[in-house]
Structures are given as structure tokens and as C-alpha cells.
């Protein structure tokens, strides 16, 4: 690998990589994504390697282990190019047949392609499958074309061209202006405008500044960040370098967890490759700009993803939110200006720079632009990761991509934002995916984790579950949060056991109100959100538990004695 010393050399290298590739050469792209719930991906990959060796096709067929394809429900997935034939739920036993029939014989194996559960219609190509057909995969669409361990794959599709454009054709202020005009809002939960945060960090006094990728992803039910980052690490890295240039930072951090070995490996490889090509380090692309990145690993609890706790963790201290009233973009790691953005926020940056804020602004709603990755889980046919434009009606996500509710059950509610989010009832699912609309409804887009609940879900139990989660995943430093969680959890547990009392709802509201106003960090200030949403939309369910000792969803076991729960 030779260092690239200019934008022209980068383009030459890209052409060179592409010209050496034969588009007609068969390639099997297999998802090796960690988000994939379908196990056995690695066994399928080994089976392909073995079969191709057996049939002496090594020189003629390429095997590409890629990141998550999103359709996790039907994994492992193998796509055979050219032709884009998509096989679902592939087992090692299917592999010899795929190699002989499809790769060599160019025939489609009907048994392995997608069949519409309603119409029985088959779809052989990936782009014809309803799950993919209506998505707008701006960030994830290349996942099948990229081996995340190969920077050449990323360069071949035009990778790092946005960085070259920023470095050579734009001043740092112009980059910030472009991000502001695009109205890119943070994907980590707050929806805060990235451009203004960058501006604050740029304007903050001090020579030494930091940029950080938040890849903590601690929300239960959220798995899109690791899917995206594992599958296309250079996309996030390119966004980070552009941000560093705009802010005037020469040192970056990637904060992620110990327990994601595949992500860690792919990040480490990406950093090493980028450095060898001169895309990181001193004098990037010959521009004179210097920037280095370190990876910080921590298992951490949920609160470690909070900005000031994350920064203390990078300093080597316990991940506790900092009590000071000063923004981390002004005073963060080691009291220096530190700009933190989520994985998906950074991943949006390169396309905004290449295609412009005008193009970006044409996607989405008035105040929520671009696409959003959604991880679908719960009572939904297609668990997985989808990417849709902001503004997409929730109904379309649940039924169009998610394939609806399994076992003929009825949809009851959708929950966004995990323990700091809220639930909305089925009657509101024609609402659009939009930061502000969801906030008005009493939920929060959060990181994009969408938990779908069917009619058998007890909403009291749902609120209890999230508090139980927080009882071990908050830091426990301040009284309103630690003691508030303890008491609210006790009350809710009692209610689900038929021991609810008159006045419990008022007491819950009172504790929640105090935590919401007096807790030290946003975690404590949001502990009551799931509860509030349930009280807003499902209050009668609460009252049935307390007054009639009955669980309307027939889910609370302990209410069975009074004839309120079904046999399980």
C-alpha cells in the first residue's frame, strides 16, 4: 500500500482498484453481521470456502464476508452477484447446491428465495424483496458490496472522496455551514443539531480539542449502530475525520464496548488501513492536516453512553455523569472542548459533503432530515435493521418492512427510546417518524430502537421492566434517581403482583416529578418517561391492576389467582 498524497492520487487509486475488478466475476456476499439473530453465519462462510475449494473455483469466485444486511429475521443471508440473487436462512447443507446450481449453473434455487407469506409470490433479487424494496438505504445500501475489513472495497465505491473535497475545496467554516444547512440532527437520542455543536467546539477557546464517536449503544433493543459500524467502519471514520477538520481537532476517540469483538476487530483494521494510505496521521492526503484516532473500550453500564460519563470514562475514571454546569463541547475530556456524536450522525457526514445540503434537505420532513436507521424488535415478524427516510409513517415501518405482528395477534403499542423513551398506542401509528412529532406524543425517537408490542403485552409490566433495567444501569450517585428508581420499582412490582393500593399512581407521579426536575443527569431526569406515556395512553390498565386486581392483557402471573391471567 502506498500513501496517497493528493485528491488526484485518491481518484487514480479508485480507478485502478475498479479496473482490476471484473464485474462479471461471481461473488457471494454473506452477512457476518453481529446484529444478525440467525446464528451460524460463520459456519455458512466456512462451508462456502470449503465447497469452492472442493470444486476448484478459488480463482473464479470471490467470497465476501460483509456486515449486517438488515433482514436479521431471515439470516444468514447470502447474495450471489452478478444477478443479486438473495438466499435467506442459508444453512451449511445448502451450500454445495448453491455453488453448483447458482454460481456455476446460473440457476435460481426456488426453495431458498424469499416467499411472500401472504401471496406466496417469490422474489429472487434482493431489491425485489418487500423488506428492502421501499427502504432508502443511503447509509446501509453498500453493506453487501463491502468487506468491512477491506479499505479497497470502500475506496472502490468512492470512499474518502468527501474527505478530499472537504480538505481541498472547503474551509473548516464552510464544512460547518454545510452541516448546519443540512440540519443534521444527532442520532444518539437527543436530536441536537450537529452543526451548532461543531460550531461551539470550534469557537471554544483552547488549542487541544477532541472529537468522539459514541458507539456505546447501551439501550436494550438498539443494535443499528453496531450493524452500521461493523459493516462499514470507514464510513463512520471518514465522517469523523471531516468533523475533526471542521472543528480543528487533531485527536479523536472511538468509545465502544469490550463485548463487541467483531466491531473492535473491524475498527482496528480500518484504522490501520486508513493510516497506511495516509488518510489518518500526519499530513492527511498531503493537505497538511493531522489527525489521529484512539479506541477506548469499556463494558460500562447504560449511563456510560451519557456524554459527560463517557468522557470521564475516557479519562480513566468511573463512568459517572459530571455534575458541572458546562457543556462538554466547551469543556469535556481533560476539560478541553470535546465534540461527541453518535455513530450514525458521523456516518451521515460524508454524503452531505459530497452531495450537498440541498440534496440532503430534500429528504425527510421539515425539521427531521435524511434517513434513520431503525432496529425493529419485539412482537414483529421481521426483526432487523431498516433504513427509511424521516417522515415515514410508523404503520409502514411496522407492516411494510416489519411484516406485521406474528401469530395473528393485534398490535397494541410501539415503544421508542428504551428506558428514556415512551410508548404510543396503535391508534397513533399513522404518525410520521420525526424527532418533534414523537416528542410531542410523549415518546422520543431515541437511538431508533422500536419495540413493537402485541395485545398480550401488559403496559404496567413494560414500565416496570425499564425501571428494573435502570436500577442496575444507572450510576446511583444522586438521590432522586437512585432512591426514586428504588421506590417506583417497588410500587410497580407490587401493582403487577396484585398488591397495588389506592394512591399508588399519585405517589408514582410525585416521585417521577421530583426525579424529572432534580436528578443530576438526563438519565435520572428521564426515568419517568416510559411510565408517563403508559399513564397517558393506558391509564385504565393501571387502574384495573390496582382496583380490580386484574391484568387486562392477561400477562401478570400473580393476578392469575383472581382469575386475571391465563395459563402459560
Amino acid at each position: 500500500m502506498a500513501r496517497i498524497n493528493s485528491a488526484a492520487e485518491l481518484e487514480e487509486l479508485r480507478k485502478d482498484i475498479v479496473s482490476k475488478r471484473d464485474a462479471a466475476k461471481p461473488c457471494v456476499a454473506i452477512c457476518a453481521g453481529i446484529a444478525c439473530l440467525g446464528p451460524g453465519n460463520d459456519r455458512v462462510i466456512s462451508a462456502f470456502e470449503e465447497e469452492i475449494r472442493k470444486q476448484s473455483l478459488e480463482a473464479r469466485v470471490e467470497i465476501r464476508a460483509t456486515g449486517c444486511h438488515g433482514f436479521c429475521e431471515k439470516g444468514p443471508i447470502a447474495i450471489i452477484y452478478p444477478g443479486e440473487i438473495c438466499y435467506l436462512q442459508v444453512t451449511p447443507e445448502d451450500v454445495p447446491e448453491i455453488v453448483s446450481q447458482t454460481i456455476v449453473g446460473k440457476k435460481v434455487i426456488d426453495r431458498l428465495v424469499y416467499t411472500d407469506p401472504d401471496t406466496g409470490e417469490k422474489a429472487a433479487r434482493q431489491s425485489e424483496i418487500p423488506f428492502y424494496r421501499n427502504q432508502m438505504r443511503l447509509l446501509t445500501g453498500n453493506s453487501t458490496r463491502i468487506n468491512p475489513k477491506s479499505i479497497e472495497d470502500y475506496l472502490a465505491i468512492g470512499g474518502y472522496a468527501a474527505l478530499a473535497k472537504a480538505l481541498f475545496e472547503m474551509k473548516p467554516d464552510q464544512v460547518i455551514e454545510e452541516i448546519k444547512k443540512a440540519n443534521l440532527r444527532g442520532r444518539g437520542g437527543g436530536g441536537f443539531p450537529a452543526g451548532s455543536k461543531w460550531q461551539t467546539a470550534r469557537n471554544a477557546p483552547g488549542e487541544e480539542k477532541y472529537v468522539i464517536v459514541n458507539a456505546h449503544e447501551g439501550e436494550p433493543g438498539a443494535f443499528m449502530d453496531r450493524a452500521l459500524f461493523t459493516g462499514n467502519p470507514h464510513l463512520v471514520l471518514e465522517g469523523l475525520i471531516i468533523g475533526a477538520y471542521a472543528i480543528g481537532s487533531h485527536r479523536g476517540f472511538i468509545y465502544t464496548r469490550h463485548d463487541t469483538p467483531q466491531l473492535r476487530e473491524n475498527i482496528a483494521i480500518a484504522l490501520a488501513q486508513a493510516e497506511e494510505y495516509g488518510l489518518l496521521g500526519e499530513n492527511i492526503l498531503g493537505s497538511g492536516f493531522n489527525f489521529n484516532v484512539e479506541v477506548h473500550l469499556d463494558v460500562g453500564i447504560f449511563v456510560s453512553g451519557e456524554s459527560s460519563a463517557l468522557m470521564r470514562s475516557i479519562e480513566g475514571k468511573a463512568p459517572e455523569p459530571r455534575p458541572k454546569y458546562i457543556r462538554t463541547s466547551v469543556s469535556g475530556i481533560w476539560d478541553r472542548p470535546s465534540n461527541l456524536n453518535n455513530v450514525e450522525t458521523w456516518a451521515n457526514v460524508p454524503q452531505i459533503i459530497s452531495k450537498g445540503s440541498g440534496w440532503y434537505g430534500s429528504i425527510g420532513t421539515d425539521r427531521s432530515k435524511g434517513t434513520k436507521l431503525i432496529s425493529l424488535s419485539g412482537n414483529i415478524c421481521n426483526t432487523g435493521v431498516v433504513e427509511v427516510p424521516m417522515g415515514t409513517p410508523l404503520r409502514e415501518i411496522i407492516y411494510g418492512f416489519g411484516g406485521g405482528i406474528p401469530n395473528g395477534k393485534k398490535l397494541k403499542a410501539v415503544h421508542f427510546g428504551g428506558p428514556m423513551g415512551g410508548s404510543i398506542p396503535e391508534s397513533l401509528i399513522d404518525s410520521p417518524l420525526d424527532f418533534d412529532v414523537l416528542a410531542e406524543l410523549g415518546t422520543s425517537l431515541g437511538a431508533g430502537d422500536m419495540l413493537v408490542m402485541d395485545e398480550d403485552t401488559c403496559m404496567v409490566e413494560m414500565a416496570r421492566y425499564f425501571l428494573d433495567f435502570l436500577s442496575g444501569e444507572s450510576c446511583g450517585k444522586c438521590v432522586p434517581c437512585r432512591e426514586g428508581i428504588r421506590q417506583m420499582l417497588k410500587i410497580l412490582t407490587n401493582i403487577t403482583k396484585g398488591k397495588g393500593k389506592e394512591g399508588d399512581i399519585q405517589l408514582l407521579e410525585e416521585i417521577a416529578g421530583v426525579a424529572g426536575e432534580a436528578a443530576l443527569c438526563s438519565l435520572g431526569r428521564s426515568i419517568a418517561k416510559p411510565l408517563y406515556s403508559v399513564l397517558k395512553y393506558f391509564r385504565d390498565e393501571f387502574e384495573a391492576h390496582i382496583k380490580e386486581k386484574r391484568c387486562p392483557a392477561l400477562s401478570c402471573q400473580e393476578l392469575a389467582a383472581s382469575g386475571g391471567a391465563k395459563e402459560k
Partner: protein
Amino acid sequence: MSEITLQIDGREVAARKGMTVLEAAKKAGISIPTLCHHEKLEPYGGCRLCTVEVEERGRTKMVAACLYPVEKDLVVKTRTEKVDRIRKMILELLLAHAPDAFELQDLALEYGADRDRFEKESSFCLHCGLCVRYCAEVKKKNAIGFINCGTRREISFIPEIASKECWNCKECFPLCPTEALQAAFVLTKALVFPSPLSELKG
């Protein structure tokens, strides 16, 4: 250092830039209750009993007085209905752990906190962190720390350090709002029943 004026409970108060609201109030003779604050230690922001209402550019918010920096023309209210409601609840939540703690009694009276509002769970510790921070910041020994998180958080002596340092010091004991009970108890436990890990190391 430059002088600024702000308003606390309707009074014009002079303060220096860099001071906290708590310091400015104290200087003006206005008292704000605190539990985790100590003059020798870094502000901690754990008990939230010092919560006050501030108004800045027309917006009101609840902040911890022990940490919030003074600003020119800041309007602070230390006793509003909201502030009192928050303090009452915080006291009630703490009284469930340490119903007889000396420091909580007068405050409970003042804010009308009911010591029996929540079921007793007498672990005594109020998690003010005074012992932990005193040992770390003043003595620089770190013989005691917090372990676990969330509702399971508790103080714990580190037997290896405590066995060498603590018997001749014990300066943290009188800082404990639950009358030194907690620190002494945990220390004894740590030394009499050291964890298996420390035995291995020992």
C-alpha cells in the same frame, strides 16, 4: 476577580465570578440546606437537597446550588413551592434508610417530610460520599470507595489499604451524617471479613 450582582430571594447580592450560588447565598446570610457539601471537598451534586429555582433569560429551571455558577442578573429563588416539594421528597426517600439520622430530623420538620412515607430499608448510608471523597481528596489514600451501581451502590473499604491506614486516622467517621455508624460498621466488616480476593493477594 470581578464583582457581579445577582438576585437571591428578592435581595440584591454581590458575588465574585466563579462562585457558586450556594457560596453567594451563604455570604449574604441566606441558608440553603445541603447534605453532600463540604468546604474542604470538591462540589459533588449527589444529594440534590440544595436544589433551587433559577431564572435566566425568562426561563426557569431547577439547579443544584452547590454547583451552579453565579452570573450577572441571575434570579435565584431558594424557597418556592416546587423547591420545597423536591426537598420534602428527597428527605422522605432518605428517611427510609436512616430514620434516626441526626441531620435529617430538623430538615424533616422544616419541610414537613414524613419519615414513614416509604417502607424502611435500613442500610443507613445516605450516599453523600463524604467519607469516600475526604479519603481521596484530603487524605489521598482511597481506602474507601463506592462499589456497584444504581440501586445497589454502596460504600466499601478496600481492606489492603484500610488495614494500614484507617486505625490511626478515622477522620471520616465524624463526617458521616448517620452518626459515624455507617463508616465504622463497614470498616469493621471489611477488616474482619476480608473478601476472598484480598486474602489471595494478602
